[in-house]
Structures are given as C-alpha cells and as structure tokens.
C-alpha cells in the first residue's frame, strides 16, 4: 500500500494540519517509507493470534459512579483566548 499526493493532502486536511506543496511531497515519501515497513510486518503469519491490547494481561479499571470532580469552571476556561461568564467563545460556527 502507498499513498499519493492527493491522499496526503486529504489526510492533512481531515486532521486540520496545514501543509505546503513542498511539505506534502516530503511527507508522501516519509509516509510511504513507513507503509513499506508496515507491509514487511504484514508478511508475518498472525492468523489465530489475538491483537495485543496490553503488555501485561490486565482488565480495564472501572470507577464507581460518584461525582468527584467539576465545579472549577474558572480553571477550565483559564487558558481560553476568549471567554465570557465561563463560556468558551469561538469564532461563530453555524452549519
């Protein structure tokens, strides 16, 4: 599998990363190098092997349903470039 320039630009757009023509060219090379390496891994027969989700066999930790957090709206919006009465303000988005 390999990617062409259009795919690189599309993926960059989906991730909201601005890339110049030159950068896109370079990334296409890098990505195809990575994909080539992954393809090599694909040669290993892993049929019947479950995908590993953790190095140590462990179950996902769960928490009790209790309110332990929140009530810190000032902290939450502290780094926002613009806020008003603890709302975040962003350039108008209407679909």
């Amino acid at each position, binding site marked *: 599998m390999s990617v062409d320039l259009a795919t690189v630009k599309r993926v960059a757009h989906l991730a*909201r990363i601005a890339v110049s023509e030159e950068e896109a060219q370079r990334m296409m090379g890098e990505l195809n190098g990575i994909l080539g390496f992954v393809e090599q891994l694909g040669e290993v027969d892993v049929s019947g092997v479950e995908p590993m989700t953790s190095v140590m066999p*462990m179950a*996902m930790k769960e928490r009790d*349903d209790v309110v332990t957090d929140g009530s810190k*709206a000032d902290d939450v919006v502290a780094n926002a470039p613009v806020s008003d009465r603890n*709302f*975040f303000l962003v350039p108008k988005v209407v679909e």
Partner: protein
Amino acid sequence: MTIIDVRTPDPKRFIPGATGDWEVIIGMEVHAQVTSNSKLFSGASTAFGNSPNANVSLVDAAMPGMLPVINEECVRQAVRTGLGLKAQINKRSIFDRKNYFYPDLPQGYQISQYKDPIVGEGKIVISLGPDRQGNFEDIEIGIERLHLEQDAGKSMHDQHPTMSYVDLNRSGVALMEIVSKPDMRSSDEAKAYMTKLRSIVRYLGTCDGNMDEGSMRADVNVSVRRPGEAFGTRCEIKNVNSIRFIGQAIEYEARRQIGILEDGGSIDQETRLFDPSRGETRSMRSKEDAHDYRYFPDPDLLPLEFDDAYVEELKTHLPELPDDKKARFVTELGLSVYDASVLVSEKAIADYFEAVAAGRDGKAAANWVINDLLGALNKAGKAIEETPVSPGQLGGIIDLIKDGTISGKIAKDLFEIVWAEGGVPAEIVENRGMKQVTDTGAIEKAVDDIIAANPDQVEKVKAKPTLAGWFVGQVMKATGGKANPQAVQALVKAKLGIEE
C-alpha cells in the same frame, strides 16, 4: 453490510404519488442519555442546567495528559438496556476514537464504539392501533446494535454577532446510541418505535427519556421506493427531539423525495435538518464535506470485558417490562388490550394502577384510572407524578362503591372533592351525608311521591314502558343521587306494573 428487508409491502401504508404508489423505508439511530451521577469517563456531574462549565473536569475539557476511566454504572446501564431489548450482550467490546473537529468537542474525537459494540442484535415490538374494529397490529422492529459513547458539549450561536458560546457541561456524559434496522414503513411506526423505546428505557431506569432536555434524540433515516423494489438512496434527518417532530419530518421528507423522483431526478445521500417552525427538512452538510471519521481503537482504554455471571446478575434484577406487564394485565386481570396498553404506556401509570388494583377488581380499577384519573390529569395538564389523588384515595372511592355505601354517580362527585380538597373518601362521605340510600322505605316514599305528582306520565308509561326511565331519573334527582339506582329501578317498575 447486507440489509435484509424483513417486511412485506402492505398497500395500506403506501403513499400515493402522481405516477403510482410509493413505500417509505425508515431506520432510526436514537441517542439516549444514560442515567448516572457522573460522566462516562470522568467524575464530573451529569446534572442538567448547571452554570456554564461547572460540570467539567479536566478530562472533559481534554487538557493534555488527562486519561479516561470508565464509569461502571454506565456499563451496567448499557447491559440492562440491551437485556430490555432482548439483545445479544457482547462480553467483550472495544472503545474507538471517532475523529472530527467541532468546538464543542475539545478532544478532537469522540470516544465511541465502532466494530465491537457492547450490545448486538435485538428487537422491539411496537403496537399500532386500535383500528376501527378495535384491533391492534404488533410489528417487530429489529435492533442492529447499541453502543456507548460520549456526548458533545453545547454551542449557542445567538449570543454574539461573531462568536459562538461553548458550554462543555454535557461533554463526556454517557450516551447509548441505539440503532434500529430499516424495518419501519410509516411515520406512525416510527413514532410508535420511539414511544416504545422511551417507555422501555424509562421502565429500566437507564435513561430518563426527557426529550425536552435532550436526554433522547433521534437521527431518522428516510428513503422511498416503489413497493417491492430495492431500497432507495436515504437521507438522514439529524437530531429530531420530539416524537411529533419525528412524524412530521418523515412525512415531509418522504413527500420531498417522491417529488424529486417523480420529476425524473435522483436523491443525493445527505444529512438534513428538520425545522419545526416551517415543518420542513433542509440540507445540512454538502457532499464535499462528507465526514471521514478515521476510527481507530482508543489506546487510552482497554477492551471492556465482563463474564456471564455479571450479565445474569443484572438480568435477575430487571423490572417487569411493558410488554410482559401488558400481557399480565390482560390474562390475569381480564383487562382489554386497549386498557392494558394505556396503563403500561408509562411506568408511573402502571405503578399507580397496580397500587389501586391490589386487592380490588382490576377492571373497576382500570376504568377509574383511565377514564377518571388520567382524564382529569390530562384536562389539568398534569403528569401522573403530580396527581392530587393518591392510589389509596382512589382505592377508597372504589371500595365505597363496591360495598354499596355510595352510588357510581356520587362516586364521581366524591372523586372531584378528593381531587380538589384531598381527604379520606370514607370520612368525606360520612361528614357530607353522601351515603347511598338503601333504605327501601325512603326510596319507596320518593317513588310514590313522583308517581302521585305526575299522572300524565303514568298514563303515557302504560303505552310506552321505556318511559319508566324518566321516573327513575326523577327519583334519583329527588334523592340527590343518593338512592341506589338498582333499587329505584326495581321499585318504579313494580309500582307502575311494568314487567321486567
């Protein structure tokens, strides 16, 4: 995915077009907010209506380095809902990241479940009717899956000329996305499906079903086709937040699509928005912007796993669900299907009815709850939870009729007094002299008086025995409705010499 058409086209649901009949195909994705104290992956509160960003932890605000930890109650609620939908429970499920950008989604992705949801295929039986003959039609609607995911925050666009206001209180609250199969064939079926689903989650206590507050909202997929042909291209109507709007949106959208097809056009697969003020749907996103969510397993979360014992334990504690309750009301209490359907429509109504019916005649209890209580509540614009008449009080009124203390007519007056003023029915009857007169002597005297005062009527009744009813009415009036109607009837007929 191969979609199997499980329904047989039924002409009574066809929509007539200019060039022949059409059939509408509907599938729904319902987002139901999980009833829990804290969010799916953080310890912030889920309470509705708090001040902006008060229910936000640094996890919900997607601050760097914050890690999600799953709320065990949300998992239980999803499994219980799955059991209520008679669905397959997947003992191993995976959380994935669904990537897109929007200001109310600070992570830049929603944690959801994609290929391995917690709940698989299930079903809901909806009941349409009654028709003119009083019959109900039961239809099975397939459930494709149910998965857990995070809700997004809320944006407001009307507070400022150039800025949108974002509140993340809802961000990270657990949602169950319940996806139906495309098994519905009319707006009535879609409304019945939503009503039934809402009823089930409310019985289970897994979602409060409060559509006004956005606890339940539906994305409705609509397409049309010529009966018997393959499915047409569908449009998705996003975020419809009332059952009535679901019906209106489908009616409009089906008509719109039929219009385009009959004019020789074709349907573009797109996302549309229902505008309740205009009663129409309109295009929301252009095709160029079609989302590519680039799902991948969330590396911050391990697979969600549990065993059979966990599922069995939850199963044992499930409450009786509306279908089972309805069947029991019909078979054990002898109620009509219609009455049983009304009573089980809301858990609170069913609970109320069962409290009234305990140790009493089920049919009498059903009549009073449906005709009198629900009628009065409806008129007053109150919900069952706000009833001024308790099950104990209504039961007391029914007992007084049963033991002959009051007549059915007086009981209606008594109900109004209890509704308006409260109090113990038996005491009210005692204090206000509302007891039924069963003393034959007193009734006899009233009958004699009426007969003596109305010789003309006595003449007429000889020719036309049905006029006896007039005398019964007069006697009831003279006794203030307190005479036992059966006793009056018998006496009137006897005195006038009318054969039974």
